[in-house]
């Protein structure tokens, strides 16, 4: 089952003094965040504060106006892009591909043959509660199932760092709780460095051992603490200030 592409070694991420502006609009201001190798960090903040922008910056899809971002040994956008895989809020599964072929998308993009991509993706379907849905088309999967396939697609890219952009934001409350447990389990089997963007405080505290809260735009870090040392109210208080 172990294949180079999917047995990635987690790498640390460091965001140092990063600012970013879109035209005249200051989005991020002097953000300092460090995530240790294989650790999980939740970034929480009001909608539109620039959380997704922060992920794009880490992934090397955008360049900061000031400051530096390091992912593993990489500083340049291309080097960062090579180390990060992004999971967006909506599953973005391709309706003409089966669930299994959607999960193997990154492998095929990297030049792996379709049959080999399927062979690598299939054991994960067994392991993570998707057995027997391999050939189902996305239109016939439930929201929770689709999100699982989307996560496996991200995982199978074999990148050391996973950037999860409100991955459960579009799900109903019960499915969301279920998938949060599922995600924690999956990450124990397949450890990665994770940055999870969410606006759900409980989700942040449940999945990640450390939480960073961002203010309204221009976003600054208003709280950076281990999840064990803070309560829901502490985080909400920091967000309100």
């Amino acid at each position: 089952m172990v294949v180079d592409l999917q047995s990635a070694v987690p790498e640390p991420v460091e965001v140092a003094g990063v600012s970013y502006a879109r035209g005249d609009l200051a989005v991020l201001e002097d953000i300092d965040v460090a995530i240790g190798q294989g650790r999980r960090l939740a970034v929480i903040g009001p909608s539109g504060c620039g959380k997704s922008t922060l992920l794009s910056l880490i992934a090397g899809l955008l360049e900061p106006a000031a400051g530096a971002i390091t992912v593993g040994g990489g500083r340049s956008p291309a080097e960062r892009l090579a180390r990060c895989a992004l999971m967006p809020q909506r599953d973005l599964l391709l309706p003409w591909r089966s669930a299994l072929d959607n999960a193997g998308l990154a492998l095929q993009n990297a030049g792996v043959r379709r049959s080999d991509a399927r062979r690598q993706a299939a054991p994960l379907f067994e392991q993570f509660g998707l057995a027997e849905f391999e050939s189902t088309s996305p239109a016939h999967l439930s929201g929770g199932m689709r999100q699982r396939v989307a996560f496996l697609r991200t995982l199978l890219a074999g990148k050391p760092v996973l950037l999860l952009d409100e991955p459960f934001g579009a799900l109903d409350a019960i499915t969301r709780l279920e998938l949060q447990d599922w995600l924690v389990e999956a990450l124990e089997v397949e450890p990665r460095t994770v940055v999870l963007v969410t606006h759900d405080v409980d989700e942040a505290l449940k999945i990640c051992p450390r939480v960073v809260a961002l203010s309204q735009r221009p976003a600054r870090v208003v709280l950076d603490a281990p999840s064990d040392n803070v309560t829901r109210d502490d985080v909400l208080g920091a967000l309100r200030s």
Partner: protein
Amino acid sequence: MKKAGWVAVLILLVVAWQAYVSLRGIPGYLLPSPADVLRTFWNDRSTLVSESWVTGKEMIVGYIAAIELGLVFATAMHFSETLRRAVSPLLVASQSIPVVAVAPVVVIYLGFGLLPKIVLIALVCFFPIAVNALDGFRSVDPEYGRMMRTLYAGRRTIFWRVEAPWALPAIFSGCRIAAPYAAIGALFAEYAGGSGGLADSIRGAQLDTALVAAGALALTLLALALTGIVVLLERVFVPWAHEAR
């Protein structure tokens, strides 16, 4: 029953037409009855079939040329903002060119063979195909690009794996819109350039109105056949577009 509603409407129209002609005693050269048209269609079937063969070939060749051109243009415009800005107003203008007016000119330049017909048919069919394809490419959620880039995809991979398949339903609807245009384009091209096609029956027999109508019927059937082929291909190639979400 709901699906067959159009059959009932069609029968009703034909019966009303027949009744109008028979009961009012309208002379056949003014308005032939449906029975006259069908009788002429049957009696002249060998001429109509051989003419349909000629016109049908022109339509298919011109139509395929339009699809190829339309897709090439749409793809180029999708990749180049500059090209899109430079060409799209001209594209819209090209759609307003009256085919009837340019047909004789095209014939003067290209002669009386197959080529001027193909050019005219391609001219009328090109626009809906190109515009729909371009809309299809551009309707892809940019989040796909953001995600795909982190999954080892370059610009080309994003086009072939996401944008092109995504645009297929739009491309097919452009083709469906363009199919009847191919018939109209063929008729005008034949008017201007003589051919052995259906225009011979339709225009040649000005006072034999039943034959004119029979020729028009044959042309309609060609347009419907082309549309039918496109719908069939769409079912085969884009089954996912019809799945319930």
